[in-house]
């Protein structure tokens, strides 16, 4: 398969999340306009920073007249989870030339990680074509994000109640579709249950810290259940 076909597969795998992201892009553009920020600021945010949730948080902080360092520190905390994505993807990118890795880093968003990472596990992406699938995914999302930002900034107020339509549910359903194939053994179920309980318990922590804490606890649970079962198996094998 060639570059274009692989990129196309990445884009196709991202379609549900692109649809789910449309209301957020429109909402971001219209909120920026509602806060009297110029359309150029909205465009610069979406095209240069390219970080969905951090962009919304920044709008709130700008409206609250927060100082620059608070906005930047908050952005840092909100985006911390991307370190986990980068660490998890390292094994699939380490052989690639630096230029490609620099480009891929720019596109390391929730949606692309969610769409492409399982493809490595399911065998539909590998070290030879994974980066092409990845770039197809993030470029298609990038295009949507910037177009909807501009549309929102120009016409957001003419789409009444858009945020109540529930288009974001597409993302919920997609993530469930991605997660369920993993749920085959106790360690993955453990991580799944802990992620649910902790993310709900900690959901009121500021700046998505709850998400980060819940993720770390879930990863730790999966890891410990995994080592416990492998140790047990090793002991049983030793006794035979």
């Amino acid at each position, binding site marked *: 398969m060639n570059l274009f076909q692989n990129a196309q597969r990445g884009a196709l795998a991202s379609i*549900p999340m692109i649809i789910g992201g449309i209301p957020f892009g429109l909402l971001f553009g219209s909120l920026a306009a509602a806060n009297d920020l110029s359309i150029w600021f909205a465009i610069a*945010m979406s095209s240069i920073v390219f*970080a969905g949730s951090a962009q919304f948080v*920044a709008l709130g902080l*700008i409206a609250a007249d927060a100082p*620059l360092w608070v*906005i*930047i520190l908050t*952005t840092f905390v909100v*985006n911390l*989870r*991307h370190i*986990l994505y*980068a660490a*998890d*993807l*390292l*094994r699939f*990118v*380490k*052989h*690639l030339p630096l230029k490609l890795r*620099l480009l*891929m*880093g*720019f596109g*390391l968003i929730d949606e692309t990680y*969610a769409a492409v*990472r*399982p493809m490595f596990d399911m065998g539909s992406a590998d070290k030879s074509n994974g980066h092409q699938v990845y770039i197809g995914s993030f470029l298609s999302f990038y295009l949507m994000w910037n177009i909807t930002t501009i549309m929102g900034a120009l016409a957001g107020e003419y789409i009444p109640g858009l945020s109540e339509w*529930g288009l974001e*549910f597409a993302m*919920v*359903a*997609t*993530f*469930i*579709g*991605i*997660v*369920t*194939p*993993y*749920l085959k053994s106790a*360690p*993955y179920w453990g*991580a*799944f249950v*802990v*992620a*649910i309980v*902790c*993310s*709900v318990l900690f*959901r009121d922590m500021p700046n998505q810290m709850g*998400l980060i804490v819940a*993720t770390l606890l*879930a*990863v730790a649970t*999966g890891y410990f259940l995994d080592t416990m079962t492998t140790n047990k198996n090793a002991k049983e094998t030793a006794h035979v």
Partner: protein
Amino acid sequence: MSNVELLLIIVGMFMVTYGIRVTLFVGANRAEMPEWLDKALKFVPVSVLTAIIAPMALTNDQGLAVSLLNPWFVGALAALITGLVFKRQLLTICIGVVVFFLMKMVTGN
């Protein structure tokens, strides 16, 4: 806010966002992952994706909303069951979304 301040916000936010995303990738060819970390990282997809959507599906502005009248919960439950039984991603997404919008229409939420 002045234009300079707005420019600094863009530059600063870009630097921390891109920095977080790219730092590990830049050193990727030299990095050697300790074995335990490699083992732990395979639980990241399940953990983070679940942690992102669980509050959306199980809570609303008032708090816990585990109710058959909550379209988010019912849609997510339908998707979860479909995914576990049929293990087909597209089917999971379609059933989840259809159930969600049907529930929204029925309950008027």
